[in-house]
């Protein structure tokens, strides 16, 4: 077998079909009609303008997280701590909003400061994971996971402690901000905020340009491919690793800020909504290529939003979205491996 674009596509389609087969099997095990489930997911995602705009609302933080992760993956780092970085972004944003909400300043200025505060929070938390890795020798996966739990604890403590609602604190989060401090919503829509969509699109373009078109991106790639030879060529491993952690933290912080200012308008216990982990799945599925991140993130967001009403219409748990995403990523990776093996075999036998 030769290494051609055609058979690569063929293998990817094969992997997707295989994933669908397994997904159907799982649905069959759960006693459900696969096609009914897919139909309701599709209806739930694009059936009306309202649900379709919910897909876009969910696409923004997911794409932001994915964009950041593409940078850390370029230097070969597994920034699993991104969940905590999103949470810290949300916490810093809420903090800034609480400080400024009664200042009487222009809402545009308050929102800008709040988003920048979120960026700061995400970056600091990412740099902490980075420092643990580069100076403490703690693998970024385990340091990041630990920091995720700390971030969650801090968040819950704030919601139930210092920032609790007047009266009784609850899992529903802090008191919502005044409508004037919401990210401006597009005319004729209930939730769509053009500003955040613009941020996400500019973000992924910036990441694509940086990785593919700049000297800095080239250095990141060099460190990712082979840290030792990059080091010998005079490219500092630790500086580039810290820089990529910081950039990923900026994007995670933005995602957290979006969750607070444009989606929930308050701080809630699960403010990161799992977008960090889902972003990792998207990055794995696209094979770390920035060019494919936006459409695949949109598809994953559609699966998430589309499955929300499955418990009502089909009595199926909405975790079906995660099952579909997981099988898809797993089989695409396995398909990649099978193809690589076949290619190698042909190379060996002349």
């Amino acid at each position: 077998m030769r290494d051609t674009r055609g058979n690569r596509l063929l293998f990817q389609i094969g992997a997707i079909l295989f994933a669908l087969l397994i997904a159907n099997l799982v649905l069959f095990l759960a006693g459900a009609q696969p096609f009914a489930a897919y139909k309701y997911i599709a209806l739930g995602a694009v059936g009306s303008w309202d649900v379709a705009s919910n897909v876009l609302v969910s696409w923004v933080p997911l794409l932001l997280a994915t964009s950041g992760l593409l940078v850390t993956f370029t230097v070969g780092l597994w920034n699993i701590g991104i969940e905590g970085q999103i949470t810290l972004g949300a916490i810093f944003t809420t903090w800034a909003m609480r400080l400024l909400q009664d200042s009487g300043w222009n809402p545009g200025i308050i929102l800008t400061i709040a988003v920048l505060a979120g960026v700061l929070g995400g970056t600091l938390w990412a740099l902490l994971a980075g420092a643990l890795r580069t100076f403490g020798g703690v693998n970024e996966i385990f340091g990041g996971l630990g920091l995720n739990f700390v971030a969650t604890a801090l968040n819950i403590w704030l919601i139930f402690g210092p920032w609790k609602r007047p009266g009784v604190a609850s899992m529903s989060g802090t008191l919502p901000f005044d409508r004037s401090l919401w990210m401006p919503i597009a005319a004729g829509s209930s939730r769509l905020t053009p500003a955040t969509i613009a941020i996400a699109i500019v973000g992924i373009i910036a990441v694509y340009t940086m990785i593919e078109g700049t000297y800095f991106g080239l250095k990141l790639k060099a460190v990712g491919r082979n840290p030792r030879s990059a080091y010998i060529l005079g490219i500092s491993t630790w500086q580039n690793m810290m820089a990529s952690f910081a950039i990923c933290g900026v994007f995670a912080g933005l995602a957290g800020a979006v969750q607070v200012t444009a989606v929930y308008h308050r701080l809630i216990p699960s403010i990161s909504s799992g977008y960090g982990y889902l972003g990792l799945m998207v990055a794995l599925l696209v094979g770390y290529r920035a060019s494919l991140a936006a459409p695949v993130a949109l598809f994953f967001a559609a699966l998430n939003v589309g499955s929300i009403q499955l418990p009502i219409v089909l009595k199926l748990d909405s975790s079906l979205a995660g099952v579909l995403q997981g099988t898809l990523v797993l089989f695409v990776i396995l398909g990649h491996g099978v193809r690589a093996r076949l290619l190698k075999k042909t190379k060996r036998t002349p």
Partner: protein
Amino acid sequence: MNSSALVTSIAGVLAAAAPVLFAVIGETISERAGVLNLSMNGMILLSAMGSFAVALATNSVVLGFLAGAAIGALVSLVVTFASLTLLQSQVAVGFVLAQLCRDLSYFLGNPIMGKVGPRISQVPIPGLERIPVLGTILFRQDVMTYLSFILIVAAWFFIFRTRPGLTLRGVGERPAAAYIRGANVNRLRYLYAAIGGAIAGLAGPIYSLSIKAGWKGTISGLDGIGWIVLSITIFGGWKPFRAAFGAYLFAFLQWLGLVLQPSLPSVPSQVLQVAPFPLMILTLLFVNIGNAEWVDRSLARLPENVRRDIVRVLRAMNATPPAALGVPFEKE
């Protein structure tokens, strides 16, 4: 707290540590052979759900435990196949499986949520249970807790005192050397990944058929345990006794969180529940920091006697992973 309540609490901590112990020892065996199984978090949830479902359907806890072990072995084999045979990243496949198995357990477990099913109960050991204090702590437990005590010693004995154990270490440390000495590296890696997965898979039924009997979906409180297990494996330095110490420390800290709760009403219970996690990061930091280059450099500036003491402390805490962990082996 009076002394009898304390004794009961210690017994409770030992029981609560049992599933963590099985998972940590299983992962230790797998990593000793060079296979990093990052899917632990989802795998424990899936085996907890699956084993409860099987026990519920067959009304047999034994079949439930077997199902848990089978799920653990199967998930572990997928990671091994993807990495050893298809040469894909163990971390990537492990992470995807951690997410996938978690969602699968929630999705497939939906119909059996909250159902009451069979569970194992305590089996006091006649005679021994009458020993004051120790009897209550050690000999009024369920079968799996007894097995967890045996598992620590058995794993240590196997890894460090037997010939197959020596080969196991060789496969993870110097696969090329093990291969030259006649070991079939990849076959052994498959074998120990499956065995380690099966042992770790028993953690699921220990939860769903014993200490947290039943399946409660997202509120089972099991999400996150697997990640802790992976940290404890590092903390344990891939040695069974040190790993057991980590597991007991974790169970103790979680119990402490529950006990302190009433005296700290301003702190939400969820915060105290995660208290062990930052402590885990700190321990990981101490376990690893001896390996960092800048530590060596700054230590070199210290006076000899101070340096000797610090180095001794760092070396005592230090743990080095199996050299070939996560690296596929190809004979050529």
